[in-house]
């Protein structure tokens, strides 16, 4: 009897350890607190939702995903320490961070370890440094800003533009590309205003915009600051049309800015309001699980996990060293992998090509005004 029990216990232990060994380990480092908490929380929830779905269907190549989440506190220094810690545990793929500044300081660590890093940063320079292990989940600024500048010049017919940007890697990268493009198209930048991350009071900045009296205002700040400046623009009665990127018209911004967000327009690589059935289904699942509507960062986190799944299935094996090579040049079709939501192609630099949207906030809701097709 005793020996049967012992054998049973050993068997259970062996089964447990083998199941544990079989799990594919992912490491996530995200902005779970600090200024980027909205970004990081959405990203993390997207990841958890995707993993729950994939594991419920039996995992990838018969193995389940397992993820650890670490908080970068929206601070590049902390992000670097957390990524180093995550890499020491030898994950299959590194997910995050979401802030470009944090990606910039952590990407060399992942590259050195030979681990693919799928992140949320959008600064143009990230994928231009020759890093072979870095992948985007959304457009880089070099893909989105020319579309933005073109829209300001062609559709808004703005001859003079005020550009407000946040003084960090993300803001500076976007500002540089958009100012160059506006200049090329012939729209004059009449106010070029840098603001600080976490800034609470925008009265002076909006005062400067008012004084410059531009035909359009391009706002490129993080979410909370976007909400504050929208309120201040309304408070000071600025009537020039507002154009931005995802960070100006995201769900969180609309919730925070209320009425002041109405009329703001933005180019959006990903939106949960996209007229795409798979995205609508994702939005419903997410809202059911977390009781709120995600912003694009929720989509990014969700897509990151499905990128890992599709690439691994394409390789037919779990091989962290071969992962980055397999993802370069890969096209994943939504028809084959519904979790990827829209057809997407990854370039040799880790940039993506996908259709995108032009969105306006109408009565507190994102309304897609135009669908912009894949470039290639």
């Amino acid at each position, binding site marked *: 009897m005793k020996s049967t029990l012992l054998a049973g216990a050993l068997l259970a232990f062996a089964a447990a350890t083998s199941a544990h060994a079989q799990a594919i380990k992912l490491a996530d480092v995200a902005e779970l607190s*600090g200024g980027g*908490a*909205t970004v990081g929380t959405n990203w993390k929830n997207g990841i958890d939702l995707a993993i729950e779905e994939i594991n419920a269907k039996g995992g990838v190549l018969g193995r389940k995903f397992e993820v650890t989440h670490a908080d970068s506190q929206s601070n590049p220094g902390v992000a670097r320490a957390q990524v180093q810690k995550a890499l020491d545990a030898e994950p299959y793929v590194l997910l995050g961070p979401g802030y470009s500044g944090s990606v910039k300081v952590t990407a060399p660590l992942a590259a050195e370890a030979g681990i693919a890093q799928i992140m949320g940063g959008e600064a143009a320079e990230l994928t231009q440094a020759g890093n072979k292990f870095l992948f985007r989940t959304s457009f880089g600024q070099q893909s989105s800003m020319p579309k933005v500048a073109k829209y300001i010049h062609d559709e808004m017919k703005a001859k003079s533009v005020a550009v407000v940007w946040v003084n960090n890697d993300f803001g500076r990268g976007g500002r540089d590309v958009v100012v160059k493009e506006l200049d090329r198209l012939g729209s004059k930048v009449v106010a070029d*205003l840098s*603001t600080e991350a976490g800034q609470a009071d925008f009265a002076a900045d909006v005062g400067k915009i008012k004084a410059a009296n531009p035909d359009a205002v391009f706002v490129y700040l993080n979410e909370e600051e976007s909400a504050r400046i929208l309120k201040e623009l309304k408070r000071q*009665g600025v009537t020039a049309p507002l154009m931005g990127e995802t960070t100006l018209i995201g769900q969180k911004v609309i*919730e925070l800015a209320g009425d002041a967000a109405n009329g703001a327009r933005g180019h959006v690589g990903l939106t949960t309001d996209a007229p795409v059935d798979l995205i609508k289904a994702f939005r419903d699942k997410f809202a059911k699980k977390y009781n709120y509507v995600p912003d694009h960062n929720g989509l990014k986190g969700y897509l990151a996990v499905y990128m890992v799944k599709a690439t691994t299935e394409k390789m037919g094996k779990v091989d962290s060293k071969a992962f980055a090579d397999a993802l370069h040049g890969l096209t994943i079709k939504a028809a084959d992998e519904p979790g990827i939501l829209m057809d997407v192609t990854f370039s040799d630099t880790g940039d993506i090509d996908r259709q995108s949207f032009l969105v306006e906030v109408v009565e507190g809701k994102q309304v897609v005004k135009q669908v912009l097709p894949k470039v290639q």
Partner: protein
Amino acid sequence: MSNLLDLLVAGLATGAIYALVAVGFTLLWQTSQTINFAQGEFVMLPAFLMLAAMHAGAPFWLAIILGILLSMILLGLAFKMLLVDPMMRHGVLPLAIATMALAIGIKEAVKQFFSAEASPFPSIVPTGDISILGHIVSLQSISVLALAILAVLGLTTLLNRTSLGHQMQAAAQNPTVARIIGVPVERMILLTFLINAFLVALASLLITPIYLAKFSSGEVLGQAAFIAAIVGGFNQVRGAIAGGLLIGVLDNLAASYVSTQYRAAVPLIFLILVILFRPQGLLGRAEERTV
């Protein structure tokens, strides 16, 4: 010119809120030698108390009343009895350090129980524009300014024109003599704590719609109000008011005419100049300083 007027109005509106917070600083200092480094967090917390009441189903007006009452209990009564009274015996510095610890505690608690993310907060004053002498100015700025001025006027009337106010001043200026002539000094000190809690709750109600409700939003406010109190004169209510308005305007003008990057530095440079050349503050009285 019109830009300057906008900046002045916006600066005065923010400055009036700094003034409310700075007045609280000076009141606590005068009556109980408390330097409250958690004053910024004291402004942040009432907004979350009101939000919590609204989440529980209370309408906005009720949430405001509950928020102010709870603030007076937690940030007035409990703060005095549980932290200031026991720490006071050990001197001004240990108490100041204890308030720093309290600031961290409040911030982390809000982050833990509410969220690290910002939340929207309804505005008690109307938004929109009005025309003053042919110039369009923000109604919200004007209303915030008006409400803050009203609160300060109410407070100065209480302090200078009523028997209660005279008793409070007596308790602040010379507690021993005040006790001899029958002023209930302990009750007067408690009253200043309650007034401070009311002022920070009011400041919270006015500033949060603009800055958003966030666990970390007290850092900026606490610092600005502290600078305002020192610049104006730590031992004078009117000094704190002047200091608050001055810092609000200076901050806005610096951001507009100097540089956005250095806006935070300008009030600090001003603070250093005041400490060097007029250490009692612009409106402070040198002879009353005990530090």
